[in-house]
């Protein structure tokens, strides 16, 4: 009896770890824009700056205890905005955006560290929102690798087909590429269809 009581007291005071959801994708897919949108909608705060220059996010940022409510269901999550995944980083690409050589080299170095951090985070997550640019070809190796890792570990995955505010966006192309996964077409920038994302977050990660 005393053992049961101790166990009950421990359970009562033991803090349950919230599910950690990583926001992944290639550079410039809109990961931080989406993270900002989610965190701003539910806490009024933001996660980090965004830029048209790739690899603006070079450190993973975690926001704890984001409570999302949709369709009468509430879910509390830790949201991790990760640096863009890439298989190549050339500082000359940053110079094309007007950066000086030294700054471009520094950004490239930090970007490589960011990619490593993003890969390491994959091991510590309970689910992923994979952000794809709906104006781009969905069969990129980064998308294939993230989906492959989640499928191999049987972890939930939600695809956010971003940038549907652009006329050339084609979420259907993404849907036909990865038909086995739930997809939400949205615009993180404009907030278009964001309510559907929240419904799917509560369905998939609750």
């Amino acid at each position, binding site marked *: 009896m005393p053992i049961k009581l101790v166990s009950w007291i421990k359970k009562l005071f033991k803090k349950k770890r919230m599910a950690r959801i990583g926001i992944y994708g290639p550079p410039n897919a809109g990961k931080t824009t989406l993270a900002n949108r989610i965190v701003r909608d539910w806490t009024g705060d933001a996660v980090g700056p965004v830029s048209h220059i790739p690899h603006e996010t070079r450190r993973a940022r975690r926001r704890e205890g984001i409570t999302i409510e949709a369709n009468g269901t509430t879910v509390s999550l830790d949201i991790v905005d990760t640096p863009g995944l890439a298989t190549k*980083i050339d500082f000359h690409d940053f110079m094309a955006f007007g950066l000086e050589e030294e700054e471009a080299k520094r950004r490239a170095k930090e970007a490589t560290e960011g990619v490593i951090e993003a*890969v390491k985070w994959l091991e510590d997550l309970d689910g992923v929102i994979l952000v794809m640019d709906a104006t781009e070809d969905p069969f*990129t190796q980064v998308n*294939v*690798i993230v989906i*492959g*890792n989640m499928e*191999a570990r049987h972890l939930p995955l939600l695809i956010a087909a971003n940038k549907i505010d652009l006329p050339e966006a084609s979420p259907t192309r993404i849907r036909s590429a990865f038909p086995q996964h739930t997809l939400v077409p949205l615009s993180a920038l404009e907030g278009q269809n964001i309510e559907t994302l929240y419904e799917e977050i509560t369905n998939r990660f609750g």
Partner: protein
Amino acid sequence: MIQKENQTGTSVQGIQLDFISEDRLAEMTAMEKIRLILDEVRSSKILVLERGLTPAEEAKLIELTMVEITPNGFSGIEIESYPTKNNTSIFRKIFGKNTTRTRLTVIGPADKLKTIKKDRDMITAIVTEQ
């Protein structure tokens, strides 16, 4: 660009492509595969793996590629594979075997191998002599 002698002793120049069989890869550990790939790619070769890497191995390959990137030197890799397929065999499920089937993969230096188009069952790439 690699210069080698062919079987008749004639000197030939070009980009070397190595086709690695499934059997050879099966004998190697994950780290051995990744080391082989990076060493070959860094010496400007293009690799075609009959049966590619697992998703975890591909993630590790990205990680180690990033470590080796240097300004004005190695800028990374171009890697293309088809999405993995799940083995649905009941035998495999019962015995808890890996149910992910990896597929053909092409890997090369980012400054030489460029992917033009990719879909579920077709990869189009060009090799440049930079």
